């Protein structure tokens, strides 16, 4: 006799309930209750249970238990999974190629070519010798403690993912800035991507793609890191000086000319701020993604946790901090350069 028996009989559902009566697998809680032999009704109002799915199931066997819900979701997902991956697999295959290619390239080209190229890029975007020196010292330090390979793997993944984030995110941001409906539809998705714990979307991804494929962590990183660049592109374009836009209209610019000659250049400081955030978030995610086979410094952190190798964990953590500082300083310096050429 359970608490809500009277409710079902009052509703005249007794027969329907009885139909569901069968000896299915018992839940752990049921087993425990049985073992204890405590099957009594609540003694006072104080113990009155909330009419949850499991409690209602006690009174009426036809009523689904809550584990049916999670099981249903799982089965539903598994049912569409094959069709879904039929579409998603070829679509995302280039991501695997890009990641594998970048990893291969970074590791096979000798260090005495990679490091100078990186320093040259740093100088090109920042024009600051101080920063070049800082980057050189940091990378040599990492290489000296034999973390060069891991650091380069992490960097390669970040470059590919951040590049794809910009490639996809900027057009989405532009579309949002042009249509209020698009903005209304996209913002909830962005909010969700930003608040959902990263572990949560690793789970369906594992089902969809094989853990051995690099696109699995690629997608996880892109989903997590694309948000700021989309948001700030949208914001940047919406914040472009109305007077300048009016002048562009008054001189007869087509919408296309307006976008490429006025809106994007003037929104560039904001877009670059978004790129900076995107790169930093890729770095955060690349560590978590080591759970699903992403190579790099994250693997060492994971080893530190799993094997309680304190030293390895600390040094690789420090390596991540160094990479973060490098990426942040370099993107911020190039952002400052853009800002300086634009202030009115």
């Amino acid at each position, binding site marked *: 006799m359970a608490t809500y028996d009277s409710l079902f009989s009052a509703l005249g559902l007794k027969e329907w309930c009885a139909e569901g009566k069968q000896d299915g697998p018992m839940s752990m809680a049921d087993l425990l209750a049985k073992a204890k032999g405590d099957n009594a009704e609540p003694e006072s109002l104080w113990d009155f249970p909330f009419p949850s799915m499991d409690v209602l199931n006690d009174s009426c066997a036809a009523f689904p238990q809550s584990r049916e819900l999670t099981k249903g979701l799982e089965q539903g997902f598994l049912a569409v999974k094959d069709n879904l991956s039929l579409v998603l697999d070829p679509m995302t295959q280039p991501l695997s190629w890009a990641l594998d290619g970048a990893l291969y390239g970074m590791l096979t080209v000798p260090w005495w070519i990679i490091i100078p190229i990186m320093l040259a890029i740093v100088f090109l975007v920042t024009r600051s010798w101080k920063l070049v020196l800082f980057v050189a010292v940091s990378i040599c330090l990492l290489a000296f403690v034999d973390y060069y390979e891991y650091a380069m793997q992490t960097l390669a993944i970040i470059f590919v993912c951040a590049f794809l984030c910009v490639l996809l995110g900027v057009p989405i941001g532009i579309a949002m800035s042009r249509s209020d409906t698009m903005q209304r539809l996209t913002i909830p998705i962005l909010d969700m991507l930003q608040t959902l714990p990263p572990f949560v979307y690793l789970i369906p991804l594992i089902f969809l793609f094989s853990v051995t494929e690099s696109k699995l962590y690629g997608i996880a990183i892109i989903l997590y890191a694309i948000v700021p660049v989309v948001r700030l592109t949208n914001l940047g374009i919406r914040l472009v*000086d109305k007077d300048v836009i*009016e002048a562009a209209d008054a001189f*007869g610019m087509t919408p296309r000319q307006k976008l490429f*000659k006025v809106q994007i250049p*003037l929104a560039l400081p904001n877009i670059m701020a978004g790129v900076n955030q995107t790169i930093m978030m890729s770095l955060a995610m690349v560590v978590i993604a080591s759970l699903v086979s992403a190579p790099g410094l994250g693997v060492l952190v994971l080893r530190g946790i799993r094997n309680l190798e304190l030293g390895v964990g600390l040094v690789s953590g420090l390596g991540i901090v160094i990479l973060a500082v490098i990426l942040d300083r370099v993107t911020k310096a190039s952002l400052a350069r853009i800002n300086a050429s*634009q202030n009115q």
Partner: protein
Amino acid sequence: MANDIKISIKNLYKIFGPTPDVALEYVKRGMNKADLQDKQNHVLGLRDINVDILDGKITVIMGLSGSGKSTLIRHLNRLIEPTAGEIRLDGKNVLELNEEQLRQLRREQMSMVFQKFALLPHKTVLENAGMALNIRGSDVTDFEQEAVKWLGRVGLEGNEQQYPHQLSGGMQQRVGIARALVSNSPVMLMDEAFSALDPLIRSDMQDLLLELQEELQKTIVFITHDLDEALKLSDHLVILKDGEVVQQGDPQDILLNPNDPYIVAFINDINRARVLRVRSIMKKHVDNDAEYAGDISERDNLETVLSRSGGDTDKVFRVVRKGEMVGSLCMKDLTRALVPTGVSTPNNHKG
């Protein structure tokens, strides 16, 4: 040619709000701006504007903020769409143009100068000046010569490679004017072009504009809230108040015969002697009979004449245009013209 109508605005209405067509009916039946706002929740922008803008002249539209002058000028190139009425450029109705034709009109017929300059901050002065040509598809090498020429003309030689933020406000607006001139359009719209500049620079810019106008004879529509500026620049003055034209005509004429207390309040503050010119108050005749104290030009302002007369009100001057006598000016008439005017006082001064 000089007095052909370039742009003609007829029965133009603009009402801001969700259902302007409904509100338009109320306005046409005579509802005023305040009632329209309270009862219909629509803002009356412009009411029944009729203005003819003459070819090759400077038409100044003057009014205080909120009088609808900026709204009006944006109707000419349809940055704002009217609720009702028509705008004709060279006889063609601008409102019937499709998107492509309108773009063509904005590129080739009308250029605009803005109060806040509205230059592209990421482009050099040279690229900004050539913006109109760049939009039409030419690149820097194509428009460089033209842009450098006009930049030199507005006094910006040697600044071509600088960025707008490196220039002062006055110089930025010179770039704005050069940009409009490079587009080589017959009509120039100037929306409070000098209002953001300090007084001395503003005066310089006004002189520059008049000097350029002497040579180029463009059709200029100039918006301002400053009466001194309006009187200095205008060939034709339109005074707006609450979206309606209060008075329009020759600025000297408006000064001598204001027809509205609003305008009287405006003109009481200005230095009449500096603004009024001899031609507006002289007696027109060619009889060379009397004794004249000297020759003055019809374009002189009264201040010049006053200082020449040394304050003697008995003197009579001969007025000449290009060496030929066109009339005379008695100092007594001059003094009378300096008396502040009330609304529609009968005017005895004009010959």
